[in-house]
């Protein structure tokens, strides 16, 4: 058990988890284009000002994940919105002024920079056809049309200042409300699968898809002024960086932000490029071009992502085997242990990966650490179960022969039972490996790279080519891993078990 702890600790250390080094500045951003662009812009400014290295960890899931990353020190700063600070971070429903938000977060050693100049509030948009058919102009018009089908982001559905409050304020009781990934909602709207969705008011898609933004005639939504949240100690560690960011104050208005969003979402330009033109239009970008991201062709990128992915899979699987095999063996020792081991392994399987990640970030930060733990947890069950089943369904005469000849318990396990059960155990590891290849795509949510990265970006940018750059290699990798295990069967499974019977 101690050896295992050492191995785990080493692996976490060498894959670079939790705390950032003191001289380094790490910028985070959430998994949607505007946050990513702002993150890039912040990174570019920081690079022009900082003494040490600056890193951008983009695509860090939703508010909970990126905020926990900030609290734990895994990142130093990220772009946030005042409404979210009040509701989600401070649990305030009274729309407090910025000063009281500052006071609230200062208690947690987090500072709020000056507002950047635009309000990216929530809104509700409907398709032009729906709007004209039902005569919808204001949100209060929705109350008369319960047949309007809503597709909302999960975060919006859950927040008090989101759907629950909105429905109450306007007396809405639609028949059909479902949770949808934001980027998928656009497609759903375009295809007529839903009629209305929540939008960010600076979203380039509103104009692009010719949607009608309904007026918030009862002033339900609070303001979501963009601000930079940063760890209070950053002002001492890298004062120049904080000053560079302060230059953004009031320089980015809705028009500029929407333009940058459009460059990414519709014109398929890279985030760094959109960030540069945002900085240029805000008049603070001169000379501070972003360090070009490791370019290379798409094949080089795919190879890099695949390598990252494979590394996560190998480590995650290794932990699953190192823990799962002994756990499966242990489970055969008593009925209670079997119930506990199999029950626990099944239980963790039911925890959604996002929930698991949100839970892990305060403990181990972001990046490879929580990803490996998640992969380990999800890879465990097939190995534990197949080891247990393989060992408990061995032919009884063989088990008794081993016992009756007086073999030591050690030899019974290692020389007889485990080799005999090896085909079943190997099948469990194979299943686990294929699952792990699929699960490892979640690594992108918390900045650990891998093939999930192009998938996640592709979904956000509605770029199916980019999605394929992640999804196709992932599928091929799963197949390759499965085949590799078929081949491994010829090495690991004893030859005597693979022979046809003589008579």
């Amino acid at each position, binding site marked *: 058990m101690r050896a295992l702890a050492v191995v785990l600790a080493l692996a976490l250390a060498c894959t670079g988890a939790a705390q950032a080094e003191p001289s380094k500045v790490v910028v985070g951003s959430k998994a949607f284009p505007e946050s990513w662009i702002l993150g890039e812009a912040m990174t570019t400014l920081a690079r022009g000002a900082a003494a040490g290295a600056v890193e951008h960890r983009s695509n860090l899931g939703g508010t909970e994940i990126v905020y926990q990353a900030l609290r734990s020190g895994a990142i130093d700063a990220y772009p946030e919105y005042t409404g979210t600070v009040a509701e989600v971070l401070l649990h305030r429903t009274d729309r407090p002024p910025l000063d009281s938000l500052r006071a609230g977060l200062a208690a947690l050693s987090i500072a709020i920079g000056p507002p950047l100049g635009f309000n990216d509030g929530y809104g509700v948009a409907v398709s032009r056809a729906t709007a004209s058919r039902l005569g919808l102009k204001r949100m209060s018009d929705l109350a008369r049309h319960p047949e309007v089908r809503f597709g909302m982001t999960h975060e919006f559905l859950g927040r008090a200042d989101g759907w629950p409050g909105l429905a109450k304020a306007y007396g809405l009781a639609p028949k059909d409300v479902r949770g949808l990934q934001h980027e998928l909602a656009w497609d759903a709207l375009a295809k007529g699968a839903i009629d209305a969705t929540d939008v960010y008011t600076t979203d380039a898609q509103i104009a692009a898809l010719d949607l009608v933004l309904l007026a918030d005639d009862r002033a339900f939504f609070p303001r979501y002024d963009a601000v930079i949240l940063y760890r209070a100690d950053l002002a001492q560690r890298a004062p120049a960086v904080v000053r560079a960011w302060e230059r953004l104050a009031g320089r980015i208005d809705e028009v500029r932000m929407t333009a940058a969003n459009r460059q990414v979402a519709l014109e398929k330009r890279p985030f760094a490029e959109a960030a540069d033109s945002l900085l240029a239009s805000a008049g603070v970008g001169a000379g501070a071009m972003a360090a070009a991201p490791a370019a290379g062709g798409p094949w080089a990128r795919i190879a890099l992502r695949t390598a990252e992915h494979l590394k996560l899979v190998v480590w995650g699987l290794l932990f699953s085997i190192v823990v799962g095999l002994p756990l499966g063996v242990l489970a055969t020792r008593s009925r209670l242990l079997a119930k506990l081991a199999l029950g626990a392994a099944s239980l963790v399987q039911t925890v959604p990966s996002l929930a698991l990640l949100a839970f892990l970030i305060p403990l181990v930060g972001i990046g490879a650490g929580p990803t490996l733990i998640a992969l380990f947890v999800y890879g465990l069950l097939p190995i534990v179960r197949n080891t247990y089943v393989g060992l408990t369904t061995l032919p009884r005469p063989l088990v008794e*022969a081993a016992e009756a*000849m007086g073999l*030591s318990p050690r030899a019974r396990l290692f020389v007889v039972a485990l080799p005999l059960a090896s085909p079943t155990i190997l099948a469990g590891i194979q299943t686990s490996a294929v699952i792990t290849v699929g699960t490892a795509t979640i690594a992108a949510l918390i900045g650990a790279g891998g093939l999930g990265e192009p998938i996640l970006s592709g979904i956000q940018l509605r770029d199916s080519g980019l999605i394929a750059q992640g999804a196709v290699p992932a599928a091929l990798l799963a197949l390759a891993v499965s085949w590799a295990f078929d081949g491994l069967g010829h090495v690991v499974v*004893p030859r005597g078990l693979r022979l046809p019977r*003589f008579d």
Partner: protein
Amino acid sequence: MIELTGVAKTFGGEAALGPIDLSVRSHRTLALLGPSGCGKSTLLRLVVGLLTPDAGTIEAFGTRVTPATRDALRLRMGYVIQEGALFPHLTAAENVALIARDQRWAADRIQRRVEELARLAHMPAELLARYPAQLSGGQRQRVALMRALVLDPEVLLFDEPLGALDPMIRASLQDELAGLFRQLKKTVLFVTHDLAEAAFVADEIVLLRQGRIVQRGTARDLLERPTEPFVTEFVRAQRVGAFAGGPR
């Protein structure tokens, strides 16, 4: 050598054996005979400690067979069951050597012992490198016998060892076993449902019915001095009247 006193075993409320008393003397071959379900295999499994009796005591070599003592006692017994139960992932030689290796015998000592046993069991040495799946049924039983003999145990327990073989091979193996038992001077418990086989290989027969001993004696005793009608019935069902007596 082996003493059963008031031994009883039930499976899920059904009486499987006893209570019975049975004493087996050294260097004797005793056949446990009876129809299926009479408890003869159960008796053997109790002796080797695969089962624990519900009542009574079992002693081997003067030591009571208990969960604490059985591992040491098993090393002094060889146990062979129907179809041999050879480990399919090990070669014939590895099957034979397994327990000796576990007992940390030196490699050359194991090697010599395996060669010696191959001669004794008429097992061609070149077949020892094969896996059980590559051997015939008869060859597998020879290997199983070698495996049981490797530590030179004082007691041999056979549970219908020839039950799955065809009649020709079975007859020749019966011959060999009978010769082997005389030569090795082991204490043997031999479970079979075949009277002729019992008469051929054993000095003495114990006939069981529904978990009880019906009669103990030679084959001739069973034929000529049956203690109850069941004995006559059992003998007649085996249709061995024509060769009554066998070799002894």
